[in-house]
């Protein structure tokens, strides 16, 4: 069941990605109903699979959940912001992540010594949700910079035609950051709670680096909200902070390799 729903979701996400990318290849844009309907069907199938994955043990279920949230944000971006171009990033990313999760194996290799507590599952879910929001902020910022460059350089090609207006991308970036950061913060707080309640052991390096990254993300949100940065500067800040998170994650994974745990 878990594998079947994941394979169905994989196929639908791949189709949704093709639909989003088709206009960039000079094909007629797909109807909006299809742009929304196909990923929604994928999300429905995927959600069924993810619900059966709990407790989340290992990298694969976490990647699967991250893919689910990205697909969800792709639909939300199109529905609320008419930003189907977000799918240029989220589509391949969600498809790739779910594909990777299937490759790694959705059944954890190492069985947990003890089952996950509900708090632990909530911590993981909220943290991944926050991470997906920050990824959306990163994507909006990247799209912003691409469109900005095209407009400044007076190039009126596919990016100019198919990407949303700058201001809308800036709004999407702003919203993702200001919602994503508190979500990540909540996830971190729950993580502390879980750790000190004795749920899951976390080494000191992860705590230190995690806190540092939280501060970097806080800075990106702070310059937007407190110092009222907008546009290109805010986009750069958003991209820099998310890139820092990714780099630190990769560094930590290199020091503690394996697929048994996400962190």
């Amino acid at each position, binding site marked *: 069941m878990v594998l079947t729903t994941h394979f169905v979701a994989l196929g639908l996400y791949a189709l949704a990605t093709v639909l989003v990318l088709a206009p960039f290849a000079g094909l007629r844009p797909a109807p909006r109903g299809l742009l929304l309907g196909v990923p929604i069907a994928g999300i429905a199938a995927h959600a069924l699979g993810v619900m059966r994955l709990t407790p989340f043990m290992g990298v694969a279920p976490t990647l699967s959940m991250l893919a689910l949230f990205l697909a969800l944000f792709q639909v939300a971006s199109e529905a609320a912001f008419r930003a189907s171009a977000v799918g240029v990033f989220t589509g391949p990313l969600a498809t790739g992540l779910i594909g990777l999760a299937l490759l790694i194996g959705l059944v954890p290799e190492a069985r947990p010594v003890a089952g996950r507590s509900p708090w632990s599952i909530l911590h993981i879910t909220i943290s991944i949700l926050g991470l997906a929001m920050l990824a959306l902020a990163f994507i909006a910022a990247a799209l912003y910079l691409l469109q900005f460059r095209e*407009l400044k350089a007076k190039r*009126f090609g596919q990016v*100019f035609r198919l*990407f949303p*207006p*700058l*201001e*809308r991308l800036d709004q999407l970036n702003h919203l993702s950051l200001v919602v994503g950061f508190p979500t990540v913060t909540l996830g971190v707080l729950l993580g502390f709670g879980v750790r000190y309640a004795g749920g899951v052991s976390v080494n000191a390096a992860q705590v230190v680096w995690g806190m540092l990254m939280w501060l970097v993300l806080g800075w990106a949100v702070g310059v937007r909200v407190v110092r*009222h940065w907008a546009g290109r500067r805010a986009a750069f800040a958003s991209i820099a902070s998310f890139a820092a998170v990714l780099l630190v994650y990769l560094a930590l994974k290199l020091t503690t390799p394996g697929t048994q745990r996400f962190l």
Partner: protein
Amino acid sequence: MSITVLGVNHRTAPLEVRERFAHAVGEVPQSLERVLAAGARGGVLLSTCNRTEFYLAEPDDAVPEAVWALLSERLGGAVGRSASEYGYIRRDRDAVRHLYRVSAGLDSMILGEPQIQGQVREAWDVSKPVAGPVLHRLFQSALLVGARVRSETGIATGAASAPSAAVAVAGKIFTQLAGRSALILGAGDIAELAATCLVAEGVRVTLVANRTYERAKAIAEELGARALPLDEAWDHFSDCDIVLSSTAAPHAVVTWDRVAPAIGRRGGRPLCILDLAVPRDVEPAVAQLENVFLYDLDDLQAVAAHAAAERRNDIPAAERIVTEEVERFWGWYGGLVVVPVLREFRERMEAVRAAELERTLRRLPHLSPEDRDQIEYFSQALLNKFLHQPTVALKEAARAGRGYGLLDALKRLFGLERRDGT
């Protein structure tokens, strides 16, 4: 029976000629009345800045001359040529195809432009009292064809003119244009035209600045804005969203020194500057300022050309729809013409049969009533047999849109001209 279009358009006549042919709405009935008096069953006059065309149902031979005479009068000897030298005539299917292509924007100066659809509708509305049933149907279908082509192909996508490109470019910077404020520099026609396009999108023109204050005031009143002298405009670069510049200055008037301080106070909000003047009004260095997006006429024409190139890819699909719809109309039209002519044909043959039967029976008085009935039945059956194949062939040809040629032959062969009321 036939449908004919006579006219001139942007391909056949220069602007100075076309503007003389252009009819105001109030002039249309008078011109149509005059043309119809030369012998036509119905007419519609489509007159825009790019074309003046008379669509006529069943015109007599004298009608083209009447049309060219009417248009030549409007030239008034100004160009020393007759209107017919700029004109064209399309008949029957070609005339229908022509109108469908016009309505679809395939014959427009800017491929796929949407205004022509409204102009076709207006021409039909104004000419309705004298259009007649055939042209009524033709124009009704032309509007549907225009709508179908626009919805099923990409012929109307993108911004294919400079003013609409200005709107498209601004629309890629701001989430929505409605409620944005615009500052107009200069009071020329181009600025006014582009401002009208922006206003149509909901942009508020708040200020109009011009070297001549009185001229600025006149345009500002039209647009519901405030007028100010040009030199007082620079400070307002801090609070407007769009600047539209089209002064007649021989050098750049919007310079870095003049506007950089005001733009610095914008707090990073984007500013879209549309420079429609030739020579340019805005110093290129202004584009280096943070979050300033500067576009001149060449840039906007590049946007328009890009959209036009995209639209050109859809011409074959649009032409296919037009061809399909021409055949549909022609099928209807052929059927419309066939019914009365066939009725007339059968009546004529029946009259001949009845007359010959009566003459034959007069010569054979010895026949019994049963024999006379047999002979009458024979004549009836023979006539039906003779008429069956031509009737079927004509109806089939009409359904396939080829009825008109066969019908013409039938009318000539059996002397039906002028007896079917056509």
